[in-house]
């Protein structure tokens, strides 16, 4: 077994391989560039058809509307990069949002209501991580089980009733900081921080190593099991942050979660360039993909097209992305 760990390349500083900046950018971040290009193109075309598309309010709707999905996709990207998957995150977000809301209306301090979902998310996903890493149960099986438990538990506990009368201070996703909506700040700060951490920290880079070649990761001394548990726990923290945005956007909290939320989150990561086989991709890509979804959704309304197209377009994008991933792998082999 060769210890060829598939890390994203860090460029040699002396420019051993002299290439144009754009070509290098595209070689390292091909899928991110494609998604960004699609967003830009959509903006140009739709604005040409209906200039109201780029009014400030609509830009805010597009860029902050899917922020909670982008935040959840950061954690999902890490999990998928290790070669695992989590299909329970949608239900988890629903449970965590209900916990936050219940604490807030029960008179607990706001900071506590906003911290609890992060901690509970980490705790739940630590259990999942232990079962996957040490129990050696495939993550799809563990998280399918978690999905039923969380979804059933949510309906069982809430009885389907909604949480209303939320204190105004709790509704942080409705607030603005320097006139920028809070969800947008969450999305940008968390994406950039996670990107840098994954690219430059030893821990972050080991995530790629585990997904790219687990045996080699072991051989190079990476404590794979422990790291896997940590990655799941971090993913739980991001689910908690996403749940906070989800719970505080409206004045009422539903006891159900959007149908197929986990699928939307996984789709965003995959279209953003995270290989479903593990080892490659960035969280910039997953965040761009959620913005692309929001852009397509808004564009379809602005140019009067049925939302059926949204699903068709996203389906096409998934196929194209997976195909590109396969081709890239074949090209390297």
């Amino acid at each position, binding site marked *: 077994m060769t210890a060829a760990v598939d890390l994203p390349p860090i460029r040699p500083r002396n420019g051993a391989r002299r290439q144009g900046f754009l070509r290098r950018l595209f070689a390292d971040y091909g899928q991110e560039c494609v998604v960004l290009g699609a967003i830009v193109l959509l903006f140009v075309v739709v604005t040409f058809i209906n200039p109201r598309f780029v009014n400030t309010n609509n830009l805010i*709707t597009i860029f902050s509307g899917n922020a909670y999905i982008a935040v959840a996709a950061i954690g999902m990207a890490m999990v998928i990069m290790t070669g695992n998957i989590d299909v329970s995150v949608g239900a988890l977000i629903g449970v965590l949002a209900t916990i936050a809301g219940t604490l807030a209306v029960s008179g607990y301090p706001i900071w506590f209501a906003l911290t609890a979902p992060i901690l509970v998310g980490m705790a739940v996903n630590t259990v999942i991580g232990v079962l996957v890493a040490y129990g050696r149960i495939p993550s799809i099986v563990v998280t399918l089980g978690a999905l039923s438990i969380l979804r059933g538990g949510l309906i069982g506990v809430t009885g389907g009733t909604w949480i209303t009368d939320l204190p105004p201070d709790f509704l942080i996703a409705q607030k603005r900081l320097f006139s920028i909506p809070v969800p947008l700040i969450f999305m940008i700060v968390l994406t950039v921080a996670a990107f840098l951490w994954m690219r430059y920290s030893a821990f972050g880079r080991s995530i790629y190593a585990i997904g790219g070649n687990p045996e080699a990761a072991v051989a190079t001394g990476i404590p794979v099991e422990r790291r896997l548990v940590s990655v799941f726990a971090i993913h739980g923290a991001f689910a908690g942050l996403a749940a906070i945005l989800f719970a505080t956007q*409206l004045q009422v909290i539903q006891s159900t979660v959007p149908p197929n939320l986990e699928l939307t989150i996984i789709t965003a990561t995959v279209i953003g360039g995270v290989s479903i086989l593990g080892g490659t991709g960035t969280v910039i890509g997953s965040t761009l993909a959620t913005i692309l979804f929001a852009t397509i959704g808004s564009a379809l309304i602005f140019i009067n097209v049925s939302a059926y*197209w949204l699903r068709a377009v996203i389906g096409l994008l998934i196929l*194209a992305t997976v195909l590109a991933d396969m081709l890239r792998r074949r090209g390297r082999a």
Partner: protein
Amino acid sequence: MGRIVLSAILALSFSTSLSHAQSSWTGGDDLPTNPLACDGTAAAAASVPYDGGQPTNAPDRNGKTITVVDVPKLVGIGYFNATSKGIADAAAEMGTMDAKTDGPSRANIDDQITLIDNYITSGVDGILFAANDPVAISPVLKKALAAGINVVGYDANSEPDARQWFVNQAEFNGIAKSMIDALAAEIGEDGAFAIVTSTFTTPNQARWIAEMEAYQAECYPNMKWLETVEAQEDNILSFNQANTLINKYGDEMKGILGMTSVATPAAADAVTQAGQCGNVAVVGLATPNAMKPYVASDCVKSVVLWNPVDLGYAAAYVLRAVADGTLEPGATSVEAGKLGELQVINGSEILLGAPFVFTKDNINDFDF
């Protein structure tokens, strides 16, 4: 690779600019519609023969005090607390009904069947039910009929021949009329509006929209139907879609209709957060609890649904009437206390009446 994706998207945007010319899709289904008269006069009831069941060898209960058990889908939630209150109110008013509510603690058909079976064994004169499953509940109800018990459903039906009558809380054309009337009252008879629904293929929503379209064309021909957008049963997506509509149409759009209890509060929140309360009206189907914040802030003036207290009240009166023998197959109406004369529809159903519109004045009387 990128080129393929880009050209696909480009092709799509071109094809869309072509379809721009087509009339926008309303999201209604293609089934025949039956709009009510604009002034609300009752439509002539199509004569459908009675298709309900009959109890076997029921004793003469005319005028006698009867014991009745009400088995809702589940107990402990606001909605069925309200129907239960309606039944208790009616029983107290009549003085000849001993009614109690006993339902499963979760909406489970097996628990519900067991409960009904126990009451058949212990012996009651009448059963009121709201079925968790229309097919699965039917055998046990037929068993009750065979034991001479009067059986009346409300809220959620069984198969028709498994009960005598069913109190139907709302028909599609009735909901449609209430929605459009409430909207017209707020935005004027020539206002423009858009709709946020779940999906174009959700049967109930598609039916309501088709009926609304027919009623609006008939009664408010100058209203402008801008477009219908889908938002699944997703509150954040509903919020985003409503925002996008506000961004797209600006001052042109005077109202948003929410077609689900998820979409309506989300649309109200979008209007609130966009600072458009008073400029963009929100009218929709929703449960009162989810709408209280928006009604309290005066951003939403009308929430359309039915009144579950009245629903329970009507069901109790219908049961009394069948036990007395005053409501028999072939009847066209039934007397229901303060609700007055209720119409028989579809053979063996009794229509509760026009839907209920929750407003600032009454919404706090409800908890569901």
